[in-house]
C-alpha cells in the first residue's frame, strides 16, 4: 500500500499538473504532491527500519538498507526543491523566460522525473531499472530545454545524444546480464532479471559474460553519473536548465545513476571477483575528480562552476566505492548524502543570485553579503561545506576516504589531495568576490525562499558532527552489501 502511494503519487501528480496547467495554485500543488510523496516514503522507510529488507509485489520491488536512504533522500530533496522553485519559477515567468504552457510542462515533468527516479531506486528488476532511467532522461531533456533558447536547445540535444548512446550501452549490458542469469535461473517469468535472485546465484554466473556486461553497464550508467570522459553533457545541461532542475539533476539523478552502477557491481563482483570492477571504478573516479577540479578554474558561469564541482565529487565517490571495504563504502555513502544536500542548496542560492543579478556570469554577481545577506551567506556557507571544511559532513566523508586511500592505495593520494586543493582554490577564489565584492544586487518581486538552503546546510552540519545510530546502521549494512 505504501509502495503504491510512493509510486502512484508522482505519476498522479504528472497527470493532475498537466491538467491544472499554469493556474495560480499549480506551484502549491507541486509542493503538495512532493510532500505527499515524502510522507509515503517515510512510511515505507519506517517499515524497512522495523523489519529489515522488503520484497514487494511478487518480488518486483525491493528495499534494503542501500536504497532506502537514497529513496528518502530523493523524496526529501525533491520536496525542498519544489519549495524553492515556487518563487523562483514565478520570477522567471515575470521575466518572460517561461510562458504558461512551459510552466505546465515544467510542473508535470518534474513530477514524472521524481516518479521515474523513485521507480529506478525501488525496482528489483534490472530491466525496469533501465526503463526508469530512460524515462528519467527523457523527462529531464524536456526540463533542460524549458527556456527554448539556442543554448538550452543545444544543451538538451547534447544531453539526449550522449545519454541516449550511453543508456543504449547499459541496455546491452542488461541483456548480457539476463543472458548469463538465464542459464542458471531459467526463463520462467522474469526471475532472471530480478536483482535479489541474481544476487543469490551471483557466484555461479559466467565470469566472462559478466565482465563484458559490467564494461557496458559502467559506460552506460556512468555516462549519466557524469564520469569523465563521458561528462560533456553535464555542465551544459546544468547551466542551461532552470535552477531547480540543476539542483535535482546534480543532487539526485547522478546519485540514482551511481546506484544503478553499484547494484551491477555487486553482482559482477560475486562472479569475477572485486579486483577488476574496483579498479575500473577507481580509475574512472579519479580521472573524473581531477578533470572536474581542473575545469573549475576556467568557468565564468556560476552554474557551470558547480556542475564541474559535481563531476569532481561524483568522481571522488566513485573512487571510494572502487576502493571498497566497509570504511570507504561507508564514507562514500555518507558523501553521496551530504553532497546531494549541499549541491542542491548551492544551486538554490546560485539560482536566486543569478536571478537577481540578471546574469549567470560570475563577474556580474557581486557583493551579495551586503545587499542580500541571507543569500550571500547561504552561498558562502554552501561553498565552504562543499569544499570539505570542518565541521560540515563532507569533511568527515572526505577525510575517511583519504585515510583509506592512504592505507590501501597510496599512489592515489597525491591525485586526491591535488584535486581537493585545486577545487578549493578554484571555487573559493570565485565565490569570495561574489559574496564580499563591491556591487549591489537588485531585489526581485518575490521573496526567495531560502529556508531549503539553510535546512539542507543545517543537515550537512549535523551529519558532520553526529550521525544518528539508525542512519549509521543503515550505512554500515549497505557498505557490507556493496562489499
Amino acid at each position, binding site marked *: 500500500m505504501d509502495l503504491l502511494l510512493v509510486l502512484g503519487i508522482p505519476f498522479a501528480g504528472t497527470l493532475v499538473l498537466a491538467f491544472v496547467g499554469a493556474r495560480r495554485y499549480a506551484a502549491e500543488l507541486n509542493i503538495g504532491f512532493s510532500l505527499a510523496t515524502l510522507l509515503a516514503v517515510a512510511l515505507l522507510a519506517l517499515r524497512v527500519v522495523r523489519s529489515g529488507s522488503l520484497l514487494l509485489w511478487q518480488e518486483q520491488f525491493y528495499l534494503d538498507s542501500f536504497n532506502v536512504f537514497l529513496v528518502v533522500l530523493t523524496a526529501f530533496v525533491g520536496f525542498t526543491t519544489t519549495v524553492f522553485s515556487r518563487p523562483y519559477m514565478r520570477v522567471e515567468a515575470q521575466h518572460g523566460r517561461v510562458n504558461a504552457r512551459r510552466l505546465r510542462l515544467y510542473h508535470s515533468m518534474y513530477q514524472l522525473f521524481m516518479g521515474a527516479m523513485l521507480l529506478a531506486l525501488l525496482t528489483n528488476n534490472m*530491466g525496469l531499472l533501465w526503463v526508469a532511467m530512460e524515462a528519467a532522461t527523457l523527462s529531464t531533456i524536456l526540463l533542460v530545454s524549458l527556456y527554448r533558447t*539556442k543554448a538550452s536547445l543545444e544543451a538538451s540535444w547534447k544531453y539526449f545524444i550522449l545519454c541516449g548512446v550511453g543508456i*543504449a550501452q547499459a541496455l546491452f549490458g*542488461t541483456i548480457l546480464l539476463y*543472458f548469463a542469469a538465464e542459464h542458471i535461473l531459467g526463463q520462467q517469468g522474469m526471475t532472471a*532479471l530480478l536483482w535479489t535472485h541474481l544476487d543469490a546465484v551471483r557466484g555461479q554466473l559466467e565470469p*566472462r559474460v559478466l565482465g563484458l556486461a559490467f564494461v557496458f553497464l559502467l559506460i552506460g550508467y556512468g555516462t549519466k553519473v557524469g564520469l569523465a570522459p563521458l561528462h560533456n553533457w553535464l555542465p551544459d545541461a546544468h547551466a542551461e536548465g532552470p535552477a531547480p532542475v540543476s539542483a535535482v539533476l546534480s543532487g539526485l539523478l547522478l546519485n540514482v545513476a551511481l546506484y544503478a552502477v553499484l547494484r551491477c557491481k555487486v553482482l559482477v563482483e560475486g562472479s569475477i571477483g572485486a579486483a577488476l570492477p574496483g579498479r575500473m571504478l577507481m580509475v574512472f573516479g579519479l580521472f573524473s575528480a581531477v578533470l572536474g577540479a581542473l575545469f573549475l578554474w*576556467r568557468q565564468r558561469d556560476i552554474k557551470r562552476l558547480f556542475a564541474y564541482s559535481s563531476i569532481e565529487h561524483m568522481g571522488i565517490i566513485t573512487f571510494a566505492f572502487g576502493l571498497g571495504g566497509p570504511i570507504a563504502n561507508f564514507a562514500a555513502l555518507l558523501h553521496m548524502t551530504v553532497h546531494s544536500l549541499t549541491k542542491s542548496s548551492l544551486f538554490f542560492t546560485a539560482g536566486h543570485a543569478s536571478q537577481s543579478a540578471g546574469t549567470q556570469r560570475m563577474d556580474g554577481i557581486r557583493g551579495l553579503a551586503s545587499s542580500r545577506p541571507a543569500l550571500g551567506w547561504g552561498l558562502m556557507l554552501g561553498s565552504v561545506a562543499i569544499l570539505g571544511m570542518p565541521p560540515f559532513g563532507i569533511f568527515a566523508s572526505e577525510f575517511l576516504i583519504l585515510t583509506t586511500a592512504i592505507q590501501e592505495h597510496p599512489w592515489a593520494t597525491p591525485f586526491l589531495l591535488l584535486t581537493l586543493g585545486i577545487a578549493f582554490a578554484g571555487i573559493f577564489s570565485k565565490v569570495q568576490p561574489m559574496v564580499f565584492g563591491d556591487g549591489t544586487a537588485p531585489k526581485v518581486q518575490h521573496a526567495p525562499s531560502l529556508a531549503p538552503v539553510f535546512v539542507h546546510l543545517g543537515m550537512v552540519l549535523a551529519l558532520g558532527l553526529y550521525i544518528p545510530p539508525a542512519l549509521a546502521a543503515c550505512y554500515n549494512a549497505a557498505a557490507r552489501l556493496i562489499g
Partner: protein
Amino acid sequence: MHDADLIAQLLRLLAAGLLLISFAMLSRRRTQRLITLYAWQGAILFLSTCLVAYGEGLRELYYSAALTLILKVILLPWILHRLIHRLGAQWDSEPLVNIPATMLVGLVLVIFAFGLAQPISMLATTITRHTIGIALAVILLSFMMMITRRKAMTQVIGFLAMENGLFFAATSTTYGMPMVIELGIALDMLVAVFILGIFFFQIREQFDSLDLHHLEKLRED
C-alpha cells in the same frame, strides 16, 4: 532436423542482411533514404523474430515480432517521413562525409564486434547464437553514424538503428527480454521520437536549419 537447419541458415542470411543495411546506412547521404533503410531494417528484424518464434515454438516472441512490425516498420518510419515533409527536409544530405573512410572504420568495428561476441556466442544455446556478433556490429555501426553525421535527423535515425541492434542482440542471445521490459523499451523509444520531433521544430525555429554545426556554441574556451 532438416527444418531447424534451414531456419538457422535463413536466420544467418537475415543477420547478414541486417549488417548490409547498416553499411548501406553508412554509405547514404540523403536523409530520406536513411528512413527507408531504417524501415527495411525493422522488416528484417520482424522476419527473423518470427522465424525464431516459429523454429523454437515461442509464443511470446510472436508478440514482440508484432510489436516490431507495428512500431519499427510502420509507425516510426511514417512519423519520420511526416516529420521531414513538415520540415521540408526531404532533400537534406550530408555532402561532407568521407564515406570510404567511415566504411573502413566500420569494417574494423565489425571485426572488433565479432571478437567481443565470441565468448558469448560460445556460451549461448540459442539457434541464433552465431548472430550475436552481427548484433553488436549493428550497434557499433549505428553508434558511429551518430558520431560522424551532422544532421539532427540522421543522428536520430542512428539512435533508432542502435535500438534495432539491441533488440536483435536480445533476440539472438536469449530469445528476447521479458515482455514487460520490451514494452517499456518500446514506449521509451516512441516517447523519445515524439520529443525529438518537437525538438526539430524548436531547433529549426531557433537556428533556421537542422544542421548541427550551429549547435557548437557551448564549449569550454
